[in-house]
């Protein structure tokens, strides 16, 4: 060990001893519930006692309501100058607002006080830049831990029954989907199956949704080389929807809809509904994450005991391109309120975060009660699924402060499981989904500030595309031009220009524009 880290460690130990001598520091941490269906940790949670005894911290933990309600609550707390000391932000618009209001503190001085955590999580300058203003870093920007876990899954038993091969191109995909819809692949004599199941979903773990039909159809746009919102082309930067290939991809989805190979309810279904339906065995192909698959396998095989699922590589488009979608390397974002920093809580926050990063804190926050919620098998934490998530989930509500996606953790979270006599090595499936998806890194999107009328822009694009693919509006030169012209009324050009400036400034495009 070099001298610097030794000194830092010594300083940290001395700070802990000094803090203990002064009495515990009150620390209010607010995070979005990691397990929404489970209650908050009980008042006698051992973590509270450990933090008091060992770190001199009197932790008050509150769970933020999920979704926009959580943002509203944080907004109200900010207005009342009552923000928690350390809290999670999931909306970048809210982050920007809090930053402008001066409610957030730079976190630079936390880094030397939590060297191990910083080295693993906050040492990427490009990621830190996403939450920086000049030299000050205003957020603890974690790296993404669970991105790129989505894939298209295919019923191999249906392929075999119909004498088909897994599709590798869009055209093959269409033909297979048609056969799954029309040729009674489950052999029940009823016309009750669909080729593909996907929904309009913009809130999918680790995928950047982009403007358009959400994440479940990005693979179509990927096959035409236009996945995501921006093209990141330094010589001809533009929104992808201006590319003629964007229209071609949209036409392909319309073709799927017109051929009735997609569940006709797809435009109004939610993700949970989609999950129910593939578990019921209605779809020959469907878009799902490895985690979602793991959660649904039990039901799926109870309903379809002879089924076999395989993962499909993203189908290739006419020019041989393929991608399952875009992703960002930026994950959870934790921030510190200015009030907390001003009142000298930085040392307590750093102590707490460093404790949560590894060892005792990591296991307690990430995995819960040893021997009850999990056990260690060959050093790999193994969840006790006999304890329902509504119970064990209480003890892991703060897990996002702890988890860091190291290989052992991933093996624990996505273990080898056996369902209906079949073995699934979930972490290998996760690795496969990440590797073969040709995922496109679009981390720069995170730096692009939302347009003042962002919601209007998103709604306009989504509504028009839905009308196009549902056949409510023809797709031809005139209607497509009308669609693109309509963007002008929303001042889309300004948004596009601002995005280009930001992406160049942050180094995601070449510095010199050529147009």
């Amino acid at each position: 060990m070099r001298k610097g880290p030794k000194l830092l460690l010594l300083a940290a130990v001395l700070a802990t001893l000094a803090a203990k001598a002064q009495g515990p520091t009150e620390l209010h941490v607010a995070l979005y519930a990691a397990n929404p269906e489970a209650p908050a940790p009980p008042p006698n949670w051992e973590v509270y006692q450990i933090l008091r005894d060992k770190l001199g911290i009197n932790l008050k933990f509150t769970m933020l309501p999920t979704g926009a309600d959580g943002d509203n609550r944080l907004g109200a707390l900010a207005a009342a100058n009552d923000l928690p000391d350390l809290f999670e932000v999931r909306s970048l618009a809210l982050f920007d607002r809090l930053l402008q209001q001066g409610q957030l503190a730079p976190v630079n001085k936390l880094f030397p006080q939590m060297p191990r955590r910083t080295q693993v999580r906050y040492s990427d300058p490009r990621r830190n830049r996403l939450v920086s203003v000049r030299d000050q870093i205003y957020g603890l920007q974690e790296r993404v831990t669970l991105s790129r876990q989505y894939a298209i899954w295919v019923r191999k038993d249906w392929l075999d029954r119909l004498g088909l091969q897994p599709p590798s191109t869009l055209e093959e995909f269409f033909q297979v989907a048609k056969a799954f819809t029309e040729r009674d692949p489950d052999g029940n004599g009823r016309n009750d199956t669909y080729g593909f199941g996907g929904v309009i979903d913009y809130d999918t773990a680790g995928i950047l949704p982009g403007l358009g039909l959400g994440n479940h159809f990005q693979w179509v746009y990927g096959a035409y080389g236009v996945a995501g919102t921006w093209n990141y082309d330094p010589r001809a930067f533009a929104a992808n929807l201006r590319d003629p290939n964007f229209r071609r991809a949209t036409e392909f989805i319309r073709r799927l809809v017109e051929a009735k190979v997609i569940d006709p309810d797809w435009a109004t279904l939610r993700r949970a509904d989609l999950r129910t339906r593939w578990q019921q065995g209605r779809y020959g192909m469907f878009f799902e994450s490895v985690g979602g698959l793991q959660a649904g396998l039990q039901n799926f095989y109870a309903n379809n005991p002879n089924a076999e699922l395989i993962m499909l590589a993203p189908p290739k488009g006419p020019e041989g391109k393929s991608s399952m979608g875009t992703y960002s390397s930026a994950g959870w974002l934790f921030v510190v309120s200015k009030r907390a920093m001003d009142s000298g809580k930085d040392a307590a926050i750093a102590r707490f975060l460093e404790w949560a990063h590894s060892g005792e804190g990591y296991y307690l926050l990430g995995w819960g009660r040893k021997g009850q919620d999990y056990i260690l098998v060959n050093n790999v934490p193994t969840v006790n699924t006999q304890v329902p998530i509504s119970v064990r989930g209480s003890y892991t509500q703060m897990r996002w402060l702890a988890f860091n996606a190291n290989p052992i953790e991933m093996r624990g979270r996505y273990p080898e499981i056996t369902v209906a006599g079949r073995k699934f090595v979930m972490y290998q499936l996760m690795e496969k989904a990440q590797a073969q998806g040709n995922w496109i890194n679009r981390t720069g999107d995170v730096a692009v500030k939302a347009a003042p009328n962002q919601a209007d822009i998103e709604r306009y694009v989504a509504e028009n595309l839905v009308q196009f693919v549902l056949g409510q509006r023809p797709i031809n030169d005139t209607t497509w031009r009308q669609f693109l012209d309509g963007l002008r009324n929303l001042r889309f050009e300004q948004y596009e220009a601002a995005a280009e400036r930001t992406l160049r400034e942050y180094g995601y495009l070449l510095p010199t524009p050529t147009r």
Partner: protein
Amino acid sequence: MARKILSRSDRWFEWSVDAFLVLVLVITLVPMWYVVMVSLLPFGERPSLWLPPWKWSFEAYAQLVGQPSIWRALLNSVILTVGGVFISLSLTVLAAYPLSRRDLPGRGLIVGLILFTFLFNAGLIPTFLVVKDLGLLNTYWAILLNGAISVYNLLVLKTFFQSIPESLEEAARIDGASDFQVLWHVVLPLSKPALLTIGLFYGVANWNNFFEPILFLSDRNLMPLPVVLRDILTGLNVAEYVEGSAAQAAPAEALKMASVVLITLPMLLVYPWLQRHFTKGVLIGSVKE
């Protein structure tokens, strides 16, 4: 009682009215029926208007009721509803009665000020600041006291009180009754239909309250049923994050509809008991004589 003899055209008219009402009834009941049917949906079945009883599955209910947090949430909802009705009704009566007296000095100004708050809401942040500065955050009082008086209900009750003949009150006063005794012994016994109606309005509003608990409460143990049910359903969507969870025993549609049934049922059970007062109360309160 002698039966009234109707002409043929009268009978046709009555039948057509009956047929129309039956149609309205069916239109009203079909969505509710659908909700119940889907809540009983087993895996492998598709949602439909008719599910034979031998296929009914109560898994969705079992999964929801099996959540440890739901019973605590139910208790919270009951406390907020019962307490809310008591506080709101008491305060509304105490405000409506004096405002219904013509001899109250400055009555017009007071009603005008109250109406102002009806037309112009302070908004989320000022409300939050008031609740915070009163030290009510994270307590039931934040829900019970915030908006305890609904201006709409206050005006309905004020109008109802005005419809009570003043001679009754005068008779009580001649007997030596104070203002409070007049209210307690004369006005309130005559206002049962209106009180039950307004109480039901408050009860339903408190039972369904979703946003205020989210805004003012941070302790999950204080959250009422709608919030907890929403969180349970949200949990179905986070299978990417939570290993070994979201293994649904019932289809997502069934869980959603079962939560709708669970949240609606208590009010549906209470409603028939209050119905006859309810109709009378609303009608009387709506007409100024």
